[in-house]
């Protein structure tokens, strides 16, 4: 009887899609126990940091000048009451 149960179990299991096999059937909140991901090497980390130089468009420079201080708040204007468009 016991081998039969094991066989039955195996058959049932075999019927599942491979990717569904590790599904949780009972929830008890815990931590990630799936496949462990690789870890970056220090060399890769350094490369990544160096690569960030490309995210700037060159060193920031503050220009001299006595123009009006930009407001950065464009306002909609340009329509006067009663205009025909």
């Amino acid at each position, binding site marked *: 009887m016991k081998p039969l149960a094991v066989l039955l179990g195996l058959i049932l299991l075999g019927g599942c899609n491979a990717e569904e096999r590790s*599904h949780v059937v009972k929830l008890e909140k815990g931590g990630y126990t799936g496949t462990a991901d690789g*870890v970056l090497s220090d060399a890769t980390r350094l490369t990544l940091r160096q690569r960030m130089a490309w995210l700037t*468009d060159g060193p920031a420079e503050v220009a001299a000048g006595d123009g009006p201080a930009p407001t950065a708040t464009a306002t909609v204007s340009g329509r006067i009451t009663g205009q025909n468009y």
Partner: protein
Amino acid sequence: MARMKFLCDAERCIHCSGCVTACKNEHEVPWGINRRRVVTLNDGKPGQRSLSVACMHCSDAPCMAVCPVDCFYQTNDGIVLHNKDLCIGCGYCFYACPFGAPQYPSTGNFGGRGKMDKCTFCAGGPEVDHSKAELEKYGRNRIAEGKLPLCAEMCATKALLAGDGDMVSTIYRERVMARGFGSGAAGWGQAYGKKG
């Protein structure tokens, strides 16, 4: 080494969606799935601001906290990833995520039950780096190649920054100082009661 972070500079973002198509291009993300999206607030009105949003790779990620099958994990560099073999596509992370990052394919074989898909910070998944399995399930792994997420690397105005958090903030701070006015970061106005 700080954690990997994105930052979108709203003073620069022009809603060109270059980040969106760069992502689609890099990972062959199909129609209907948007790991990254640009949103515009106050569209057509003064104060209009655009921001590019994807998974923010939270330090204390809500998705991770609520996932019933614990399919999420964080890499040593703070990138929040998930394991599609474990994911059951329940959508609970969708509830939890403050940014609407998780995506659910509507059809498909593997995704027949709607496995979740999201931004990987171009770091692939738990499979062996550059393996066929990783490419198939999560897209390319740029981080392992020593490259940053393509969305940020290709950003039209260099508004979207990605990488080591301390360096992101250095680049950004330098810019804000040069500007000498306000901040382009979203939430600035809210935080400081200032317009913009």
